[in-house]
């Protein structure tokens, strides 16, 4: 019973915070709500007996990536998205934009429903599926470097490319101060 309450609390926080991320206009608040959502997610991971994944979630997403987000928001110093709201001629007010967005949202919902329909075991009680091997770091490393080697290496190449791109974009031209 307590597990169920904790589960629903975390879920409610995760869903509520995620909805508010796009539901309100202050970008600063959006970033913070996203962090809250990540925190709730990591709570759910702990309930699934995956403490390592939970901590990785906080360190990487809530810790490192969101600090960068915050950094960018602060540097741009654009806490509000007012321009699109008041300016009727703004490109975001074009009717086709709305239609395109609705189409994307429908697609996403269909995909989600399709994916959820394929997953089995969703009706099992919360906290009952405690597969200890999921959280074990050793097991995780083994799977990552054997069965999923290709995905792992491909991701690292992707990150390398992104990093080189960032360096080139940020590089000062010679002679430029």
């Amino acid at each position, binding site marked *: 019973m307590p597990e169920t309450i904790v589960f629903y609390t975390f879920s409610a926080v995760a869903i509520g915070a995620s909805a508010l991320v796009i539901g309100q206009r202050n970008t*600063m608040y959006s970033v*913070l709500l996203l*962090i809250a959502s990540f925190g709730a997610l990591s709570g759910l991971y702990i309930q699934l007996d995956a*403490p*390592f994944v*939970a*901590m*990785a979630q*906080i*360190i990487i997403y*809530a*810790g*490192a990536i969101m*600090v*960068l987000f*915050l*950094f960018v928001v*602060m*540097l741009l110093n654009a806490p509000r998205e007012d321009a699109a709201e008041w300016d009727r001629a703004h490109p975001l007010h074009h009717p086709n934009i709305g239609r395109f967005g609705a189409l994307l949202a429908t697609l996403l919902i269909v995909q989600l429903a399709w994916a959820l329909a394929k997953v089995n075991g969703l009706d099992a009680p919360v906290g009952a599926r405690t597969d200890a091997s999921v959280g074990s*770091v050793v097991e995780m490393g083994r799977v990552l470097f054997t069965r999923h080697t290709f995905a792992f290496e491909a991701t690292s190449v992707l990150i390398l490319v992104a990093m080189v791109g960032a360096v080139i974009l940020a590089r000062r031209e010679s002679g430029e101060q």
Partner: protein
Amino acid sequence: MEIYLRPVVIAVMIFVVFNALIMASAVLVLAERKIMGFMQQRYGPYLVGPHGMLQPFADILKLLFKEELRPKGADKWLFTLAPILSVVTAFVAFAAVPFGAETTIFGLLDEPIKLGVADVNVAVLLVFAVTTMGVYGIVLAGWASNSKYSLFGGLRASAQMISYELAYATSLAAVILLAGSLSLREVVDAQAGTWFGFIPRWYVFLQPIGFLIYVIAGVAETNRAPFDFPEAEQELVAGYNTEYSSVRFALFPQAEYINMVTMSAVAADLFLGGWHGVPLLTELGLGWLVFLAKVGVILFGYIWMRWTVPRYRYDQLMQFGWKWLFPASVLNLIVTAALVLYLDA
């Protein structure tokens, strides 16, 4: 132990640790001012209580009675949230730090308890994760104040903490490889005993470079001199906390001192053998005294460093972090991993 006694013991533990941390920050403030005074050939605080011992309490009382100001353009919610976030993450991080072996407190309890608030099996990661969340308090304080000095302090804090987090985490990873566990308690217990009968089996002897990197990155993570850029007073007035006053202001140094204690406690656990090292005290169940002594030594080093080394320049900070500290820590990790693999095989 009867089943109903367990929550009581845990509650007492939380109460003791919470208050010990608050007292620790008061003692540290005094120690800092006294040591600073000694280094600058003066007395330091001397009037409140014998030898100025009660000075921190006078400071806190003064802060409590100050007017709480909030700048006109400040963000109401985040301005209040920022100091709370700082101090909460500081307290939570210490919850996963063990500070003593299992003890029955001289036979007071029927069943031994582990000294430490929570015995988490990924404690190393938990402490790291929560301390990295501490940067939000500083960044938000800088942004919410609606002041350029505060904003610069916040920006610097986020850049600095991201840069030094890498070296910090990598030096932790090398110790984790040696101990083969993510639990701080298991890492400490792996350091019990001695080599050749007289050298304690502390990881600082296997990981001297790792220890050095950990301490340097730890100083940068807690924003202490010579890495105190977020509050560099000659350039930024007081940095991220310029616009704060009264209790809200008091929470920032409080969080900083608690973070220092956590950083030192984790260093003692990971590199200096935690509560091991003095067999007599360990047998008496007083290993936590050894632990306290080690934390005290590291904290003294912190204060010593602050009043000895001048602040870096900002570009030096970034160069040092990215071009020296991080590569050194990666090299250290690779060599450690190779040796562990070679010696195990």
